[in-house]
């Protein structure tokens, strides 16, 4: 199973874990399985028609999935996915 790193804003939705192991052979399958197991994640990163919101970046082994094959990007057993929304915090 691949490892999915969960950003701070989504951790409550996965029971506080910083990373979870998820099966799936493509980015799309991994995210679908993640959202099945943790529906609260899906509510935040997927649009009404089930596609990924544009503000969600997904990295596969450190590379931007958008510049690979986006949600069709193959995911191997030992691969690491990072879900990465922008963070704003700095001053206050």
């Amino acid at each position, binding site marked *: 199973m691949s490892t999915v*790193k969960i*950003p*701070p*804003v*989504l951790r409550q939705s996965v029971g506080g874990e*910083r990373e979870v192991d998820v099966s799936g052979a493509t980015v799309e399958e991994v995210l679908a399985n993640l959202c099945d197991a943790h529906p609260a994640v899906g509510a*935040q990163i997927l*649009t009404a028609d089930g*596609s*990924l*919101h*544009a*503000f*969600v*970046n997904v*990295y596969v082994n*450190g*590379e*931007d999935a*958008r*510049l690979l094959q*986006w*949600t069709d990007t193959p995911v191997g057993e030992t691969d690491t996915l*990072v879900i*990465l*929304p*922008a*963070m*704003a*915090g*700095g*001053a*206050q």
Partner: protein
Amino acid sequence: MSPSYQDLLAAAREVIPEVEPSDIAPRVEAGEGPLIIDVRETAEWDQGHLPGAVHIPRGFLESRVSGATSGTEQELLISCASGQRSLLAAKTLADMGYTNVTSLAGGFARWKQNNHPVEMPRILSAAQRSRYSRHVLIPEVGEEGQLTLLDSKALLIGAGGLGSPAAYYLAAAGVGTIGLVDDDVVDESNLQRQIIHTTDRVGVNKGESAKEAIRALNPEVQVNVHPFRVNRDNVLDLLGEYDVVVDGADNFPTRYLLADASLMTRTPLVHASILRFEGHASVFTPYDGPCYRCLFPEPPPPDLAPSCGEAGVLGVLCGVMGNVQATEAIKVLLGIGDTLAGRLLIYDALGMTFTELTVRRDPDCPSCGPNADLQLRDYEAWCAGVGRHDQVGATA
């Protein structure tokens, strides 16, 4: 019998060619000469030197020469006051494997007598030399680099969690001018992390408070307090005055505004953001590397983008990330090392891990792509979702 000084000079002359000033001057004046290493003492160097020469006092020659040269085959001309120390220094370099070393006959004295051009070094004062001695010792910084920092201007957006350590260290480093943009005042709840402020300055504008701390640390630094929010009307003038901008903002409209404006003014942008135990950092080099919108085409909706005021932040995390920014700003100003341009550094304080993601320029980037229609917009409305979705399609 042990060799005398004259014997040593004679031995050096056998292997080191001596070059007359008049023979090499045309090449030096055309900027096509060898690398000139001046081995005199600092007080002598300060009185003037050959144009383009680098200064390595004789006593440091062996330890510093490799940092100054591109390799043992580089053509070197060694100079001193009269041509004797340089001869011995050149012999030492030949012994170290340098194959193309000459010595300036008659040294700087003869060069000057022949009326060849002389460069007066811009130098640190004795007090500066003492204050910044640990920088001057680093080959990548040195006196030249320190002078560059003293001439540099850094603009910090926010004198809060990230801006506090960044401003403090940039001031300590001798960055000559530091601009602080913040319309907020110091609150007691800031002091858990915003270390440039103090309990007795609660209620004072953050820029003014930081200025006071910087004055106590390094009075030489010019601090410009900009006690307002950066916006569409002031951002270009503001950025235009500075060499680098350090983004420690606390909201997306400001971050996207800075991203676009820094492209327009071609100002390098040193980014960091923080939440709870996690920090992001990168450097956006306009049109040379990816920009903020290549990385994050759109901001998340407010419920997925809580501020530190809403979600909290580990105070010391600000120190780590603010100092990553200060480090990157100094590297940008000095043009040294590999910055985070093209990389996003993610620091997870709970796991104590540093992870890197590769950030590439997006050929369709609506801000820096070849077909971008870059103009400053109403970022408040745009970040709230107004007029956003027709700009960037969700390509999933």
